[in-house]
């Protein structure tokens, strides 16, 4: 299955290389990896989606924690999270079809952000399923180019996970146990 790990890492040269090298060396399978800023100026945040068919998620997390620039790793797979993926999609589109395309994109709360003679760029943000859904609908029109950021995730604040535990308690339970 796929697990989502959130890692806070010191913002220093080579840290992405260290993480990538670890995944290569241990043959852990990365589905997606995003890096960007966090609430702290010298800390970056990585959202890593791993395929755990070969190595269990706790082993991937434990190996990540061994890297010195990695400050904290949380497996958020079983926690209530907000997940987002952003895609830019260039779709073939004659001028006459623009209005129809715009309304389709609108259903997905996407936007047309660039218009050319025979194509447009669609921007859409959402969880993986929503972005995949729009892609399926656009595919027949001809997807000329596409880029996705990969998933970023954040644990929800005050909600419980359905077992009466707060997100923090559920997280402690996931991390503390094997």
């Amino acid at each position, binding site marked *: 299955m796929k697990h989502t790990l959130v890692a806070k890492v010191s913002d220093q040269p080579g840290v992405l*290389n*260290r993480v990538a*090298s670890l995944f290569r060396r241990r043959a852990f399978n990365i589905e997606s990896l995003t890096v960007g800023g966090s609430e702290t100026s010298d800390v970056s945040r990585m959202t890593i989606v791993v395929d755990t068919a070969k190595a269990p998620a706790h082993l991937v997390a*434990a190996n990540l924690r*061994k*890297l*010195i620039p990695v*400050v904290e790793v949380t497996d958020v797979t079983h926690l209530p999270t907000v997940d987002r993926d952003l895609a830019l999609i260039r779709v073939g589109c004659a001028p006459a079809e623009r209005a129809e395309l715009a309304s389709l994109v609108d259903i997905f709360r996407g936007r047309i952000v660039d218009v050319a003679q025979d194509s447009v760029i669609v921007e859409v943000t959402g969880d993986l399923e929503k972005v995949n859904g729009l892609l399926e609908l656009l595919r027949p029109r001809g997807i000329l180019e596409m880029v996705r950021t990969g998933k970023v995730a954040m644990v929800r604040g005050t909600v419980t996970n359905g077992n009466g535990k707060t997100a923090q308690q559920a997280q402690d339970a996931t991390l503390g146990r094997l």
Partner: protein
Amino acid sequence: MQRTGAQIIWESLLREGVDTVFGYPGGAILPAYDALLDYPIRHVLVRHEQGAAHMADGYARASGKVGVAVATSGPGATNLTTGIATAMLDSIPTVFITGQVPSKVLGTDAFQETDVTGITLPITKHNYLVTDAHELPHVMREAFLIARSGRPGPVLVDICKDAQQQKVEFEWPETVRLPGLHEPAPPAEDDLRRAIELIEKAERPLILAGAGVIRSGSSTVLQEFAEKTGTPVALTLLGIGGFPQSHPLCLGMMGMHGEAFVNRAIQRADLLLAFGMRFDDRVTGNLKTYAPTAKKIHVEIDASEIGKNVKVDAALVSDLRAALVALTPRVPALRHDDWLAEIGDGQKETRGRDIIHQPDGGRLLAAHVIHDLWEATGGSAVVVTDVGQHQMWEAQYYKHDQPRTLITSGGLGTMGFALPAAIGAKMARPQAEVWVVAGDGGFQMTQCELATLQQEKLDIKIAVINNGFLGMVRQWQEFFYDRRYASTPMLSPDFVTLASAYGIRAHRVNRRADVIPTVDQARKFEGPVFIEFQVEQEDSVYPMVPAGSDLGAMIRRPAEAPAEVER
């Protein structure tokens, strides 16, 4: 106070308690060497940087302190890598300092430039590239902290030449902020309770003691635990010395060349207590059939080892000593007489086949040499081995009672380790009697360090077990490649002449009767002595679990006829 980057290196080492470093100068590290003359630090000039790395490693293994090696950029640094990887695989606290080309020309393929932090990334616990002397005090402080903490390991600091020359205000940071360095937590209460429950229920428990026993200084507490719970102890190769082999509960080494009764006990046990060991493939054999009836408790400081190879029923992620101190008072006093009797029967059967009790037929057998060396030294020497057959015979026949008396490359299996590691060990413990035990193959890989030994005037005794083959490889060819001896017969120099050329007293022994007298004579002499033991050429290490086979399926030493496979 104002200091150059070069001076800060040595200022930092002094503050970390380092008095000896092993190294080799060169262009990019010259500023550091120039500054070294003004500091009270002994520099051991090696003959090859690999030797420097193994010396730092041997120094650390013998003393528990951090070993330090220094090299220049490019080839100097790449020559260190075998030694760095050796220290990584066996978790040895070491710091490697390398010179780098000036920061202005980094990335331009300048003379003797290599991406050293890139090359050593997967074989270090952490590494640094320093381009500005302002960073150096923190980096040096962190390097030692990281090397020592948790599961120890090598840290490399690559320092640009201009950073060494740069003059900055120097202040030693008493504390550093390393939020990513997680100090081991005490064992969790839930886990302790689960472990105690398993220990109370077990009828056939067995302790598997690894290197962690020695690293954490747990020998005494382990003995208390084993005695209180009546639990026998099997050792990994790197665990040897962690529990006295003369102790009635000590079974000796497990795994590929462990005694048959030890491996059988693992396969029969209903509880394995894995203490500071990592279920290496040389210890487990086929994982699918490993210890099928046993519950497993894993006490391990590195969380990433839990469940890596073997699924466990309870895990204490903590310092082993802390775990044993917490466990021992809470477990009841137990006896397992039937279990010990069963193991004892196996032990008797094994003894019957032991080569020690077999006639040598006039041949000199390597196992006999090791056994006699053990007798002659009263089992109290620090033995530093190379890798191969002699290493396994040492593990089987030299009975160690004290921690840090067997120094050997386990995880990486680095040939050429023995002589330089012994130099490091002797410098760490000048009072100890240090013996190199090496094969003719491995010894030739780093024999240039004989010059270093002489230059430093070290009293190290060297036993080269010469069988004219790369013995362990030959053994595999005999067992698994139809005796096709591809590139394993090996020509060696006249070792006695070779040692003499370095000004080292040397003897050749080819009869059993001469072993103990020659060893005695060497021990009486103050200074290095080299003994070449010309042993039986095609002898094999028994028993042997073929790689990947069930632990219970081993090739045993034939009584007289060819080897049989027991299933």
